[in-house]
């Protein structure tokens, strides 16, 4: 859809959002919702739906994208030229999007061996990646960053996607079009291969019927995290509650600032490769896929089942429409007069969605975090 009058559309969307926010409030005049009476088995079905319908496919897609990018970089190193570099850069965008779609799953194998931070070290408030990656590129005598095995022993900041982004897009990356960029290209290849190994370990962990899958779907008293069905359901639901909070606090607010003058375009993840918008869109797409796979409607009390999944889907659609209407790159949008309001609106939709999951869905499932345990201290 081409948008000629964004302000009118946004006003309309804002009004619809406001209506939607008012709707459940009206349905809950009698105080907090009566939590679901769904059985443990039914709740664990939702957990299983997410594992098999979204988490496993999400990580598989990420692994595939990593493997493809490693192949593309391999081809670039072998026959460096402008076209191969362009192909490798496009592959990076695909890889960043594939990870963005599944990155808010922050439990299970991704938490072992610092895998999450090794794939994505962000936010990087002190610019550690830039400093350390430049140091590696400046010292071509030291080849310890050129093999995935030795790279894996180094700082998380030089192993992951933001390191690869600098190598492929940062200053000096044009040398990758020539044999003069051999060292840089070998480092890029090592990063991609290392990401492939990490992705393989994560998909293997989720594919294994023991381990995390068994822990989540067969909760046990001796488990430190999943002792009953509600614990597993809460973990799954935390993907949305925490993920949307991360979008707000890590991906949007630091870059948006108070206004266009106060904006900090470099605070966007992947601003260097101009993949910030693509990754942000993939964040929402991934969350939507996980939500659709869950089929929460099956276990929500009737009062909520009749509107809440639709209300959440409606907000996801709002986010999608708004993001589709934003021109890339975000670094320009955030300082522009005419388009910045769209990003402000994404922030509002993120907040609405977060509130629907945290303040409506979770209580209806009987999962409200207590005041003391919420966001612990």
């Amino acid at each position, binding site marked *: 859809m081409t948008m000629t009058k964004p302000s009118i559309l946004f006003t309309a969307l804002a009004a619809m959002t406001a209506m939607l926010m008012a709707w459940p409030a009206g349905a809950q005049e009698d105080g907090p919702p009566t939590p679901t009476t769904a059985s443990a088995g039914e709740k664990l079905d939702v957990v299983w739906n997410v594992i098999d319908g979204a988490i496993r496919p999400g990580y598989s897609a990420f692994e595939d994208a990593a493997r493809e990018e490693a192949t593309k970089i391999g081809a670039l190193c072998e026959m460096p030229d402008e076209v191969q570099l362009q192909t490798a850069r496009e592959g990076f965008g695909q890889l960043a999007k594939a990870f963005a779609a599944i990155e808010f799953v922050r*439990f*299970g194998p991704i*938490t*072992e061996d*610092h895998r*999450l*931070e*090794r794939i994505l*070290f962000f*936010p990087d*408030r002190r610019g550690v990646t830039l400093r350390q990656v430049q140091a590696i590129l400046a010292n071509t005598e030291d080849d310890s960053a050129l093999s995935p095995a030795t790279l894996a022993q180094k700082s*998380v900041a030089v192993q992951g996607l933001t390191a690869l982004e600098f190598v492929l897009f940062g200053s000096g990356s044009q040398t990758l079009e020539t044999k003069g960029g051999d060292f840089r290209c070998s480092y890029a290849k090592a990063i991609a291969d290392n990401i492939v190994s990490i992705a393989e370990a994560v998909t293997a962990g989720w594919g294994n019927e023991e381990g*995390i899958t068994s*822990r989540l779907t067969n909760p046990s*008293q*001796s*488990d*430190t*995290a999943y*002792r009953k069905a509600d614990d597993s359901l809460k973990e799954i639901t935390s993907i949305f509650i925490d993920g949307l*909070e*991360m979008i*707000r*606090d*890590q991906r949007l*607010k*630091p870059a948006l600032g108070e206004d266009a003058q106060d904006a900090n375009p470099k605070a966007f993840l992947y601003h260097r490769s101009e993949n910030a918008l693509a990754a942000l869109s993939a964040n929402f797409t991934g969350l939507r896929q996980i939500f659709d796979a869950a089929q929460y409607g099956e276990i929500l009390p009737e009062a909520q089942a009749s509107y809440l999944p639709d209300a959440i889907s409606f907000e996801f659609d709002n986010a999608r429409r708004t993001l589709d209407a934003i021109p890339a790159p975000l670094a320009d949008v955030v300082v522009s007069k005419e388009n910045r309001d769209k990003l402000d609106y994404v922030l509002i939709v993120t907040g609405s969605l977060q509130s629907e999951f945290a303040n409506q869905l979770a209580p209806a499932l009987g999962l409200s975090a*207590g*005041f*003391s*345990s*919420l*966001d*612990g*201290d």
Partner: protein
Amino acid sequence: MPPIRNRLATPLLARRDFLAGAGALFASTLIGRRAEAFEDADALFASACRRPDGSYGCAVFAEDGRIVSEVALPDRGHDVAFDPLSYRAVAFARRPRTFAVVFDPKTGETVKTLTSAEGRHFFGHGFFSPDGRLMYATENDYDAARGLIGVYDVKRDFARIGEFDTHGMDTHEALLMPDGETIVVANGGIETHPDYGRQKLNLATMEPSLVLIDRKSGDLLAKHRLEKSLHQLSIRHLAIDADRKVWFGCQYEGPSADAPQLLGFATPEAGLSLIEMPRGDLARLSNYVGSVAASADGTRIAISSPVGGEVMILDATKKSLIESHPVRDGCGLAADGAGFLATSGHGLVTHLAKQAADRQADREWDNHILAL
């Protein structure tokens, strides 16, 4: 030994002592049910809370849970400090907020609202010097990700007169040792910055520590760390037992399946030691200890996990579990006579190891209780 604070093995401020001081005047001015609550109370406690209308406050309550006084807070608070000499209490903001409210626990009247120094925010804990002249608060120099103890001169209207480096980041709870001169600090090791809300920024590289510093000079006296494989075990809450062992409770930021021990103690001779809790008991803590308290006689240690919904009492000498109680969202703990008082985020005030009725308050209690 001078009175220090609730997590130390010191006698509680009994009602009759309170009455002997300024409390007598106070009691005579109380009206109705609050006066009754005060009259019946053997001990008083304070805790930050959320009120039924969604606003935040810090309530002073009797051991039966009846509220005696309450001060409004501009936002969510965390822990409370109390100086028995001046009868002043201070409610600290929960990170990353920047206020600390000095109030009179007798009336709930605000004496002064402190704002943290430029580039700093409060981490939520603090204490007074034994002579009541200085107040110390845990703080974050957030641009440098550097933990601090801010030092405030009580007589100069709580002017901030200095700060001590805590040689770590995420300085959470700090207590004064029984010598009255040494500050023991729990550096949680987790980097946060107000620009990123409460997001944890350094889970791969965190380095928690337990540090001893001189309260007058700020000199580093000792720094203890856990073994490297436990670098994601955040040391956050403290209590001191009768043998002057410093007990520390942790929250684990690594993979949940690791299930590391969460409670340990520090001694000058041996540094840090984790106790060995059986797996079944450990599992109930859900990788998270939210507060630690010593009994009045210092022979027992209580720990709570609001995430696991469990409160446990351990023998401080044998280092073994005595009893365990399920308390949904239970976190606040304080010595209460021969037992412990515990509070929950759902408003419960309950007694452990002591026969007394529970009470349900219309407050959501925050993570900590101070025994006045």
